[in-house]
């Protein structure tokens, strides 16, 4: 396992135009890796939000890193609408592919199984489906009566980017019960993970830790980043800094306000090592 990589080292591995899976704001999003992508001036990224986007997606969009976003929603939750997402959509500089939460999960579950698609109930009659030429409705081949059902094609992200509480010497990371992150990591070609702490040993040898582990088989890069999720929450370790998120929602209504907030409030705390 590589020694002391920084978030910037991991961001350097993500080429422009990559398809990147991100967790939602309340579930181990990596602000450290997001800011590293902004520092490396990534361009043309295609975001795949699992299953919704928020602060992380809005930061990347505001910094000009994103060409496309597939998501079931973009919101800052209690802090309100995502201002740079909304502005980019209005300006026509962002391709938005609307989905619905279980379709996002299904696309990744198909990829982790290595099958080309998986069926999903519901969604019929939604305009989300009408705007997804890549989704297909077939007649359930096992039903006696006509039974239209949706097929979602597998999505294999180039990278899954997230933050984990722990990494061990064997290259495993611990995310706890947030198993949709495991699906994301299983489906992605590479998983780049910032971690709060490193511990000795192998967590897969510990029956109590193992169920919350994502195996090092999927993890291709780990960077140490204490408080790497802040100002978002990290499980029960630290809560979201709601005043920072509210300040962001207000400041980022303008491109200038966004740039100033990024420079003054976010970047100083995350200088490259």
């Amino acid at each position: 396992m590589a020694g002391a990589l920084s978030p910037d080292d991991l961001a350097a591995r993500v080429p422009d135009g990559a398809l990147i899976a991100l967790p939602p704001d309340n579930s181990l999003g990596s602000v450290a890796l997001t800011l590293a992508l902004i520092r490396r001036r990534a361009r043309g990224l295609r975001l795949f939000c699992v299953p919704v986007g928020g602060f992380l997606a809005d930061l990347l969009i505001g910094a000009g890193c994103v060409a496309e976003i597939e998501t079931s929603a973009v919101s800052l939750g209690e802090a309100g609408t995502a201002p740079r997402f909304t502005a980019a959509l209005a300006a026509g500089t962002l391709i938005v592919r609307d989905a619905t939460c279980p379709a996002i999960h299904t696309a990744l579950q198909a990829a982790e199984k290595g099958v080309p698609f998986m069926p999903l109930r519901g969604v019929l009659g939604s305009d989300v489906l009408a705007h997804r030429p890549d989704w297909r409705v077939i007649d359930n081949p096992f039903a006696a009566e006509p039974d239209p059902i949706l097929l979602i094609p597998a999505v294999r992200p180039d990278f899954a980017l997230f933050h984990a509480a722990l990494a061990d010497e064997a290259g495993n990371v611990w995310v706890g019960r947030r198993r949709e992150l495991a699906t994301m990591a299983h489906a992605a070609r590479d998983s780049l993970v910032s971690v709060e702490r490193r511990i000795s040993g192998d967590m897969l040898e510990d029956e109590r830790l193992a169920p919350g582990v994502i195996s090092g088989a999927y993890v291709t890069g780990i960077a140490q980043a204490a408080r790497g999720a802040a100002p978002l929450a990290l499980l029960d370790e630290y809560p979201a800094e709601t005043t920072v998120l509210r300040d962001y929602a207000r400041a980022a209504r303008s491109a200038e306000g966004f740039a100033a907030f990024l420079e003054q409030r976010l970047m100083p705390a995350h200088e490259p090592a």
Partner: protein
Amino acid sequence: MAITASAPVGFAPEEFLATTLARLILDPAAPPARHIAVGAASPIPAAACFLVKTLGHEARLSLLHKTSGNPFSEGTRELFDLTGQGRIDLFFLGGGEIDGEANINLIGTGEWPGSEARFPGSFGSAFMYLMTPRTILFREEHSPRVLVPRVAFVSAPGISPPGHFRRGTAQALVTGRAVFAFDGRRFTLASCHPGQTPAEIAAQTGFAYETPPEIPETPPPTPAELALLRGPVCAEMRATYPGFCARVWGR
């Protein structure tokens, strides 16, 4: 919100709406609500569910965004797997727009995907609305802007054609002014909140609905219900909805 100005003193509009939702949850004519899920940023529906529980009714309540003691061990995906199997009996949905066929729009207006106004997006609604035996639609703002003749985009349809797999649809729509019942085809004005008249509601509603000759007033919370909301319900909610509890209950 509309009932603020004219409601009798003694309870907050949020308490009134939570009580109204709780009575709909307990409607004996509706399918049983053994397991209720509550989505993100829904403190009033959450309060309604906790009120139902503290009134002594057996119900499992799963708050998606509960910060500690979250009900799911497989991530939020588990909600959709449970719902796919039919294990979630009741869910709440809202909409930037809602129309008379109980279609909801969480996408936006103008050209797809929201060139005039962009709402957050559909979340899981396109799935949950069809796969849950009953849904209570809840939107505090009751205006022609929200309650429209026809939604600009359908995030999730209220009515599906025969042959589309669907377990249920809207039971009712609760707003800051009124309760509408939904029979699978049309809304009927079921009650007006205190201070509202059928004529005013008609003026504030963009879609057509049935109006019976006699419209009751939505009953206010009882002192016992208010005591439960301010005591055990607030205590249950404080960790997940601190801002809401501070605003409504001052703690």
